[in-house]
């Protein structure tokens, strides 16, 4: 299938708007302050976020959406990943697709009702104040009222900038979640890109042995590999989004996007820490935030076994 993978003017405008908003209101640096953790920074700008009109982006106009599609949502999800925005915002983007109840959908699109993600039978992420939880199970995802779930407090998780609540019980009835898979891949791709940018920037400015460390092949080639991994994940995610629902095998396209995005996010986050040397190992440096977030977000949705089955089913 012949596709044009370059965003058109309208798509670029949407991306520019969200990128610029996040850069102003939710820069990664906000997470140095514990008061911004657990989705608090996002809650503080919630009304402005809603005004951007993100949450109905991919829904048909007759359902109260903007009538656009997964490509536009993917550009948003990627931007959210780049800025390590609370997964609740991504959940809010996904949630309206998971309900046929008009009033619930309208409330989610308007941002009057709040959504959050849960990792299958494990944790609700940044779920304080959420009304609806996107719960994954083997068959896909479903939207559950927070009140229906049994939740318990925890001592926190790997990513200390997120709020973890333990969840008992499973997903209930689920519906196919391939769209969510592509969006999670986009978020992970954003992490991979941001980690690359951060490493490249540091490699240009940090000097050792009398020159920028980026002049050394060990660092230069590591950066080149980061860019290559990010490019593979990104183009595949954009491709999957662009052909979504148009007759290609969405399950295979989504599984490829997730597989590549996971690896790009993990490897690039690690390489970014390594590029920063000792600094990268400290809590003061933002490098570790990308690794932690990637590891948590990858627990959402499909696991490697499911993706393997999809990728080797149709050969």
């Amino acid at each position, binding site marked *: 299938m012949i596709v044009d993978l370059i965003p058109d003017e309208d798509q670029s405008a949407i991306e520019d708007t969200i990128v610029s908003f996040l850069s102003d209101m939710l820069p990664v640096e906000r997470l140095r302050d514990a008061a911004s953790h657990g989705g608090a920074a996002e809650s503080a700008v919630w009304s402005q976020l809603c005004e951007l009109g993100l949450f109905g982006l991919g829904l048909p106009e007759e359902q109260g959406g903007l009538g656009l599609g997964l490509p536009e949502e993917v550009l948003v999800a990627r931007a959210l990943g780049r800025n390590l925005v609370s997964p609740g915002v991504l959940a809010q983007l996904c949630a309206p697709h998971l309900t046929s109840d008009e009033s619930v959908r309208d409330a989610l699109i308007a941002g009057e009702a709040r959504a959050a993600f849960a990792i299958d039978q494990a944790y609700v992420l940044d779920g304080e104040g959420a009304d609806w939880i996107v719960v994954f199970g083997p068959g896909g995802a479903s939207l559950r009222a927070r009140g229906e779930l049994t939740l318990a407090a925890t001592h926190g998780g790997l990513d200390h900038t997120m709020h973890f609540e333990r969840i008992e019980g499973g997903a209930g009835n689920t519906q196919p979640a391939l769209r969510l898979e592509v969006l999670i891949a986009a978020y992970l791709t954003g992490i991979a890109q941001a980690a690359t940018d951060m490493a490249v920037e540091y490699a*240009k400015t940090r000097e050792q042995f009398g020159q920028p460390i980026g002049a050394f092949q060990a660092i230069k080639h590591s950066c080149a590999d980061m860019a290559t991994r990010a490019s593979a994940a990104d183009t595949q995610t954009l491709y999957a989004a662009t052909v979504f629902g148009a007759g290609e095998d969405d399950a295979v396209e989504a599984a490829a996007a997730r597989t590549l995005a996971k690896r790009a996010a993990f490897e690039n986050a690690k390489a970014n820490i390594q590029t920063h040397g000792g600094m990268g190992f400290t809590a003061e440096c933002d490098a570790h935030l990308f690794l932690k977030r990637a590891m948590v977000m990858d627990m959402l949705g499909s696991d490697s076994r499911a993706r393997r089955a999809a990728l080797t089913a149709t050969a």
Partner: protein
Amino acid sequence: MKIVESAQLKQFREQCRDWLADNVPKDRPDDGEAMRDFDLAWQARQFEGGWAGINWPTEYGGRGASVLEQLIWHEEYALAGGPPSGCMFVALSHAGPTLIVSGNEEQKSRYLPTILNGTENWCQGFSEPGAGSDLASLKCKGEIDGDDLVINGTKIWTTYAQHARWQELLVRTDPGETRHRGLTWIIGDMQAPGLEVRPIRTMAGLEHFAQCFYDDVRIPLKNVVGEVNQGWKTAMTTLGFERGTGTVAHQIELATRVDRVIEAVKSAPGGADEAQLEMLAVLKSEVMALRSMTAASISRGMHETVPGAEGNIVALYFGELTRRVNAAAFDLLGPHSLERAGYNYPAHFLECFKWAIGGGTSEIRRNTIGERVLGLPKGPKAV
């Protein structure tokens, strides 16, 4: 970001598919004169069918296809099992385009038609022993003597030199200059006296490369393309010609190979091994990424006039991936893949190393990505 296959393009696709189904030749010889004859005959047949020079402007006899049409052609070509352009590759993808951009009218009318109709093929003469990936350190010498340039020196890694009629030759004409300066791009005559071509056998056992030795080889100055001592500029002009559509065939072939191994592993006696399937699932996602990266590269080509250095990312990815895919095929298919019979896995595996070595090693590509895509400093300086 949108699907762009229009009704018109769909019709073009049908047209390609039908013609290819009726005309694609089978059983290309692996090597030698028979291979050259096969490649030229196939070019002649494409010329007769109106498909020669798919990306060449119509004014020079090409098909003048749009980028999307080129892409469709290459996709259908690969799906139809079309043979590699082989001995015609340099003429079609590099020498011809260089002449179109930088040649004078006489050169264009002399050399372009015989490329398209498959009567004359070309080879490249850029790399030299010792220069390797460092093209700007070329030493092969050209001295002006009357109306001729007298060539002395050697060129290496010349693909199919022993089968070629002409050669795009880059020589140092100003010995006082270094690096990119003082080079001249000239149309070399492979039948000129004083030129000896020695085939190089690769580790796959094939003679796809050669070394050329020039001993007072005289080439008329009218064969200079562009200006004397401006050869680097001539060589660089071709870069904008290739829109990445040519790699579609390699990408589809690689994807087909992964699918074939998945099938084999799944039908193994004793059942599929999930660990092998996991390795293949990752490779499958990577060949899909290669397809998407190629699509993105072509998309960029539709929006930009001069391609950036991003092409190195796709080239690096392909060079490393093809080796992994072929190595995995070996590992997963078991002992019978060792034999040089049927689908010749040994030759395919060994040949594929060229993608991470030829035309810039993976190491050089990583340098280029670091410096030209990411803006990292050159270097390092002495420590």
